[in-house]
């Protein structure tokens, strides 16, 4: 047993937060386990993805530290398994990546971790990410979140069909009607297409992040691109609610193809629609209360 840091009170083992470490490198796995135990966590270590899913499902740890490159499957596949199970969905995942991983394991659409840490990292960096993800988990509990999924989509990919399938799996777990699901699906796809095409200009190295959260009362998407954003006061080529077709002449003069309806459509299909100041992040919210009354 590794001694606690000076001055740190060792918590009772049954109160300590439980961390599942998934790392195939035996030396690093052992080091991570020791570090966590030193800091008062309970640590359980496994070496592959299948065992990680089994242990996470049976033990329900408070957090998972997950290596991206595993012998039997990628960390993203483990993420997808855990994030799409109701009983493991909220377990925060800190993913460990190497610098070369991002390119070698790109797959267009990924179910992501809550936090990322690039190797090599210091013990302090790891502990900061673990504590931060545990804090995030507590915040989710406070607002009675029961589903939280982070997706990443490459801007040049044609995997939105797969995205559509993933959304279907997520929406099944909500009380929304078929029409409301159609509305939020349409709004989400419009904004994701906007983020990839106008925000990231379909640049192959830029991704669209999609954060999905469901509580007892609402469903929320936060869609973020890595582009420079835009001035929402300067959109003469986009459809406006008061006259949705007036912009078509402007687009023709500017040599743009027909379109510009994305924001108008998305705004009309959700209960709350908001861009951030920079214009590279949009939040879409659909309340369940309305669906109960409708």
């Amino acid at each position, binding site marked *: 047993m590794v001694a606690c840091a000076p001055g740190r009170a060792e918590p009772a083992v049954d109160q300590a937060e439980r961390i599942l470490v998934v790392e195939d490198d035996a030396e690093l796995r052992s080091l991570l386990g020791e570090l966590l135990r030193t800091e008062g966590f309970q640590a359980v270590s496994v070496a592959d993805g299948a065992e990680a899913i089994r242990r996470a499902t049976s033990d329900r740890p408070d957090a998972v530290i997950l290596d991206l490159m595993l012998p039997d499957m990628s960390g993203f596949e483990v993420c997808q398994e855990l994030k799409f199970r109701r009983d493991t969905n909220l377990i925060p995942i800190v993913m460990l990546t190497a610098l070369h991983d991002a390119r070698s394991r790109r797959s267009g659409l990924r179910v992501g971790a809550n936090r990322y840490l690039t190797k090599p990292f210091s013990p302090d960096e790891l502990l900061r990410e673990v504590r931060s993800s545990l804090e995030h988990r507590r915040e989710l509990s406070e607002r009675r979140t029961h589903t939280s999924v982070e997706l990443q989509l490459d801007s040049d990919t*044609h*995997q*939105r*069909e797969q995205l*559509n399938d993933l959304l279907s799996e997520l929406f099944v777990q909500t009380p929304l009607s078929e*029409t409301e699901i*159609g*509305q939020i*699906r*349409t709004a989400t*796809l*419009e904004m994701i*297409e906007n983020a990839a*095409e106008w925000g990231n200009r379909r640049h192959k190295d830029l991704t669209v992040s999609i954060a999905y959260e469901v509580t007892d009362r609402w469903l929320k998407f936060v869609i973020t691109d890595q582009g420079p954003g835009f001035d929402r006061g300067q959109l003469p080529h986009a*459809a406006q609610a008061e*006259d*949705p*077709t007036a912009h*078509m002449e402007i687009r023709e003069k500017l040599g743009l*193809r*027909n*379109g*510009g*309806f*994305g924001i*108008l*459509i998305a705004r*009309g*299909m959700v209960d709350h629609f908001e861009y951030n100041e920079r214009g590279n992040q949009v939040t879409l919210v659909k309340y369940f209360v309305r669906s109960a009354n409708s």
Partner: protein
Amino acid sequence: MATLDQSDVRGVKVLRLAGSLTRDGVDQVEMAFVAALRGEPRVVVDLHGVDLLTTPGISMLLAAERELKQAKGRLVLSGVRGMADEVLRRCKLHTVLSVAPTLEAAVERATDG
């Protein structure tokens, strides 16, 4: 995924679109859709099988409508329902595109005049 099926009804080209007319869906059918319009003065686009319609799908329909208009032809939509109907209404595109309640009515309208 989106699909395109073509037929002729009383001299009118009928193009049946189905699936999701999103960016990926449009990429799957747009070339065949554009090719099918070529040289056809009267076209009905049936959207009965379309479950999702986003901006790329609207763009494809508007471009087709404009092309036929310029060629003194006519494009009529039919089978507009569910989310496709809601999207077109929100964008007030029923005022720009000709929308008939049934395929039969769309064929009639396309041949009218």
